[in-house]
């Protein structure tokens, strides 16, 4: 059969219970672009983002083997996937490596988009890791606060504060750039 297009969370969970492999392909199709985009802002190289976007799902697939039907139905899929993805991003961030070369062009800057992704990478890199993760998950990957709290293991109130302080710092950075 052909891979099925993106479906809603309930349908994906129902399919994971009835046909693990088909459900998994729906999970990847639905959520991998968001994980990749978020990881692209939380890791320095696009190779890292690709690895995170792949390994997150390979780990999720293996984890599903140990889950019974009730546990699968109770999953909040994006929060669960991001718990795995954030761990992988942290592991990669801790690796010693060379600075990105000029060939690590950000795709967002090569199309017609007026958004300067490299400038955003630079601004985001000045946030604390908790603030960066919270801002990226909320505003790039479009996760609700509850899922971010699950993924980061921090209370919702703390996540909201991380986002608010992170956005303040980003705004200040942009204002500084404008005055230069």
């Amino acid at each position, binding site marked *: *059969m*052909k*891979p*099925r297009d993106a479906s809603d969370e309930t349908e994906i969970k129902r399919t994971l219970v009835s046909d*693990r*492999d*088909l459900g*998994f*392909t729906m999970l*990847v*199709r639905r959520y*991998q*672009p*968001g994980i*990749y*985009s978020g990881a*692209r*802002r939380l890791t320095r190289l696009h190779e890292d*983002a*690709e690895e995170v*976007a*792949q390994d997150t*799902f*390979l780990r999720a*697939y293996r984890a599903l083997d140990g889950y019974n039907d009730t546990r699968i139905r109770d999953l909040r899929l994006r929060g669960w996937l991001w718990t795995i993805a954030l761990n992988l991003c942290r592991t990669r961030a801790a690796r010693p490596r060379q600075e990105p070369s000029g060939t690590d062009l950000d*795709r*967002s800057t090569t199309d017609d*988009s*007026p*958004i300067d*992704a490299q400038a*955003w990478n630079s601004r985001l890199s000045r946030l604390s890791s908790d603030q960066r993760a919270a*801002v*990226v998950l909320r*505003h*790039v*990957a*479009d996760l609700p606060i509850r899922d971010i709290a699950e993924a980061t293991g921090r209370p919702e109130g703390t996540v909201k504060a991380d986002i608010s302080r992170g*956005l303040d710092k*980003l*705004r200040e950075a*942009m204002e500084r750039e404008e005055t230069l």
Partner: protein
Amino acid sequence: MNSMEAQLAGLIEQPPADLERITVTEAGAGDLVATVDSRFGPLWVAWSRLGVTGLTPVFAVPTIDSFLEHHRRVSYEAPALPRSLESDITDALSSGTAGGLSLDLRGVSEFQQSVLESCSTIPIGQVRPYGWIAKSIDQPGATRAVGTALGKNPIPLLIPCHRVVKSDGSVGNYAFGPEMKRDLLIHEGAIAL
């Protein structure tokens, strides 16, 4: 000028086009599909991380789209088979025995799996009646169900369902027509021309 939040939302990027295929097939949740040449013309072959999952002559299912619809597992088109797999399949087709070739029958019912495993023990050059398979899996009354299970064999030729014939010795049905079944059995020396 976009608002800051709108600019952050605009940082969404599509992953590389092949990332879904790589992820799904690496996990073993989906298959790759390519063709291999045979004396029946090209054959569609689907394979997973664990082994061959499907095989169908192109003459029976002429397009990749129709094969993907027909195959029981999620599959993605590959440019070619890995060379070692291609050579193992070619050897298996010419020798009439799958030998060490790994076959992946996940997704096939337990009953069908036992029927196909029993069928795989029939040596080249020999035939067995449907009832023989039924007895071999300790279900002597299930002759008709054995026929149905063999008719849905996802890996024909490599699992030699063509070696199962009617109890009166006539060749019986075959998914790709009785002529192809007769041709296979003559080629293998199981029946006379």
